[in-house]
C-alpha cells in the first residue's frame, strides 16, 4: 500500500498548489536556515583526527604564576609553553611520543630559475610529529630521531609545494634553499590539511598547514624566530639566547598517550615536574598543570565560538516556528479533505490506513521541503563567503552526509509536524461526513 499512498500524496500535492507551495516553503526555509548554520557548525566542530583524538594531548603548565595571565582562558593557563619547559619535556621522554613545534617562515629560492623566490610557511618540529598526527607520505618519509639530535638540514615538504617546485615528481634527495641555506628533501607528504588545524591554534585555526617541515633543533640552531605568537610576562634578555632562557611562550607541545593509564601517568609526571620547578624556586607559586586531548583542546580554545552555537540554536528555533506553520497548513489541508477521508473510511479504510496515507503525504511534503532547503542552504553558504575565511569556507560545503542530514531532518520534521493533523484526519467520523452531505 505504500506505493499507492505515495501516488495519492503526489496527486494531493498537485490538487491545491498554493497550500502545497506554502507548506513546502515553510519547511524549506526552516531547513535552509538550520542546515546553513549546522553545516558551518559541523565544519568548525569536526574532529580533525578522529582515529587518534583521544590519544593526543596538550600538556599545559603555569609558568607565569596566578597574577600574570594573558586572559584568554578561564583557568589562567596559557596555550603555549616556553623553551625551557619544552626542552625539559622532550628530554624527559615521559610519553611514548612527543613533539614540540613552532611556526617559522623563510624565503624559499627554487632551484628552477624560472620560478621566483617566495615566502614559504614552515614548522620546526621533531620526528614524532609525523607519526603522532598520522601524516601521510607520498615519497620518502620523516627524518629520524638521529637527524633531530644531529640538527641535520633536511625537510619534509607538502604535496602542494612539491607540485610547485618539482611538478609532482619524486623529489626525495633534491635540495631546496631556505634563507640561503640548502636543505635536502627527505619526504614528500600527501595532501594533509587537518581542519581545524588543531596542532597549532594560536593563529587562525582554519588556516592552511605548513609547506615545509624541518627539525626543531636545526631551526633553533639557525635562530629561526617564531612566526606565531610570542608572549612574555617579564622582559626577556636580549638576543636569541635571551629568548631561550626567558619565560616567553611560543612553542606548541603535543604528546601521544595510548590509553587512560598512560594519560594518568603523564598527568602525574607533569605535576611532579611543576612541583619540582616550585621547589627549585623557578616558580613562586603552587604547581598547576593540565592535560587535554584534542577534542577538549578544541573546546578549551573555543574553536567553535559561542556565537556559532547560539546561531545554530536560533536557526533550529526558527525551524520549529516554520514547522508550526507547516503543521497549521497541513491541518487545513487534511481537514479540507475530510469528505474524501469519510468516503475512504466508508469504503473500508481503517484509521491506521488513513494515518499512513496522511503521514506519507507529510513525508513527501517534507522531502520536497528538504530539497528546497538544500537549495537554500547552498545559497546561504554562498552568502557566508563574505563572513568566513577562504580556508574555513572550503570546509563549509554541503557534503553527502550533510545532504542526508538535511533530507532526513526535513522528512522527520514534516512527519512530526504532520502527526497532529494526521491524527485529526484519522478521527474523521465517516457517518458525520456522509450525513453532512
Amino acid at each position: 500500500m505504500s506505493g499507492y499512498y505515495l501516488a495519492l500524496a503526489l496527486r494531493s500535492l498537485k490538487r491545491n498548489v498554493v497550500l502545497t507551495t506554502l507548506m513546502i516553503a515553510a519547511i524549506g526555509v526552516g531547513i535552509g536556515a538550520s542546515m546553513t548554520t549546522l553545516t558551518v557548525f559541523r565544519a568548525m566542530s569536526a574532529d580533525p583526527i578522529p582515529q587518534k583524538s583521544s590519544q593526543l594531548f596538550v600538556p599545559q603548565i603555569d609558568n607565569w604564576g596566578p597574577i600574570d595571565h594573558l586572559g584568554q582562558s578561564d583557568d589562567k593557563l596559557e596555550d603555549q609553553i616556553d623553551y625551557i619547559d619544552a626542552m625539559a619535556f622532550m628530554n624527559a621522554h615521559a610519553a611514548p611520543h612527543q613533539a614540540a613545534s613552532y611556526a617559522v617562515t623563510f624565503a624559499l629560492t627554487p632551484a628552477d630559475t624560472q620560478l621566483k623566490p617566495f615566502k614559504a610557511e614552515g614548522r620546526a618540529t621533531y620526528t614524532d610529529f609525523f607519526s603522532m598526527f598520522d601524516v601521510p607520505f607520498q615519497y620518502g618519509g620523516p627524518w629520524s630521531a638521529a637527524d633531530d639530535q644531529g640538527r641535520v638540514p633536511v625537510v619534509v615538504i607538502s604535496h602542494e609545494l612539491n607540485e610547485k617546485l618539482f611538478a609532482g615528481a619524486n623529489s626525495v634527495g633534491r635540495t631546496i634553499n631556505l634563507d640561503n641555506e640548502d636543505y635536502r628533501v627527505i619526504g614528500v607528504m600527501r595532501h594533509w590539511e587537518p581542519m581545524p588545524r588543531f596542532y597549532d591554534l594560536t593563529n587562525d585555526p582554519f588556516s592552511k598547514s605548513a609547506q615545509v617541515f624541518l627539525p626543531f633543533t636545526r631551526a633553533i640552531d639557525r635562530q629561526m624566530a617564531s612566526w606565531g605568537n610570542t608572549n612574555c610576562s617579564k622582559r626577556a634578555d636580549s638576543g636569541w639566547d635571551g629568548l631561550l632562557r626567558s619565560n616567553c611562550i611560543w612553542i606548541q607541545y603535543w604528546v601521544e598517550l595510548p590509553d587512560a593509564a598512560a594519560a594518568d601517568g603523564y598527568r602525574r609526571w607533569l605535576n611532579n615536574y611543576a612541583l619540582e620547578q616550585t621547589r627549585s624556586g623557578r616558580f613562586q607559586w603552587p604547581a598547576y598543570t593540565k592535560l587535554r586531548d584534542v577534542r577538549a583542546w578544541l573546546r578549551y580554545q573555543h574553536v567553535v565560538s559561542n556565537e556559532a552555537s547560539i546561531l545554530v540554536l536560533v536557526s533550529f528555533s526558527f525551524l520549529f516556528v516554520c514547522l508550526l506553520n507547516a503543521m497549521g497548513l497541513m491541518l487545513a489541508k487534511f481537514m479540507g479533505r475530510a469528505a474524501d477521508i469519510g468516503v475512504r473510511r466508508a469504503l473500508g479504510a481503517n484509521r491506521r490506513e488513513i494515518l499512513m496515507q496522511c503521514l506519507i503525504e507529510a513525508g513527501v511534503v517534507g522531502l520536497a521541503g528538504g530539497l528546497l532547503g538544500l537549495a537554500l542552504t547552498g545559497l546561504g553558504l554562498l552568502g557566508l563567503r563574505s563572513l568566513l575565511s577562504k580556508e574555513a569556507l572550503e570546509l563549509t560545503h554541503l557534503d553527502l552526509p550533510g545532504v542526508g542530514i538535511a533530507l532526513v531532518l526535513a522528512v522527520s520534521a514534516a512527519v512530526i509536524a504532520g502527526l497532529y493533523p494526521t491524527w485529526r484526519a484519522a478521527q474523521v467520523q465517516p457517518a458525520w461526513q456522509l450525513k453532512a452531505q
Partner: protein
Amino acid sequence: MLKMTHLSKVYRTEVVETYALRDFSIHVRAAEFVAVTGPSGSGKTTFLTIAGLLEEFSGGAFELDGVDVHGMNDNARSRLRNEKIGFIFQAFNLIPDLNVADNVEVPLRYRGFGAAERRRRITQSLERVGLAARAKHYPAELSGGQQQRVAIARALAGSPRLLLADEPTGNLDTQMARGVMELLEELHRDGATIVMVTHDPELAVRAQREVHIVDGQVVDLAIQPRLVGGQRAQL
C-alpha cells in the same frame, strides 16, 4: 442478511439525550430489495450508517450476514464493511482527483487484491454500469447520472453481500434517476440484496417492500409485495 433487534441509538450531551433510533427491529433477507422511508429527521440515515458499520449503536443487537457486530473494533468493522457492504450515496461521493477507474479501485485496494484482480474487477464493474469507455475520465467530466453509475460500479466492485443506497437519485433529474433505478432493479434481479433509503414514495414502491420510520421507530413493517421487473416478487 441484515438483522437488527430492539436496536437503539442515543446521542447524549451534558443536558439532553436524543434517541435517533428506539426499539428498532428489522430483518432484511438475502436478495431482498427494501426501501426505507420516513420524514426528514426520522432516523433513516442513522439506520443506514449503523447498518453500514459507520456508526456504533447504543443498545440492542445487530447481525450482518450472520456476524454479531457488537463490540467490534475499528479494524474488524472496517474489514467487514469492505468485504460485505457496498455504499451508494446521494452525493455520489467520488474522489475528485481520481479518475473513474481509480475511484472504483479504492475499496479493492483496501481489500488487498492484487493488480490483475483489481483490473479485472474494475473492468467488469464499469462494463456492468455501461461506463467502461469512461475509465480514464475524471468525475468532473461526467454527468450526475454517470457519476452515480460510477459510484454504483465502485459499490459493486468488491462483490458485496449488501448494497446500501442513501437517496441514490436525490441529486439527479428524473431522466437520470430513472436510469439509476433501472440499474438498481437490474442488480436486484441478478440477486443483489439492496437497502435503499428514500423519501420519494414513487421510488419506494419499486422496492419489494417498504419499511417506514417515524421518530426512530419502525411504524409499518407490513410486507407489501411490489411488482419487480414486471413480475410479482415471491417473499
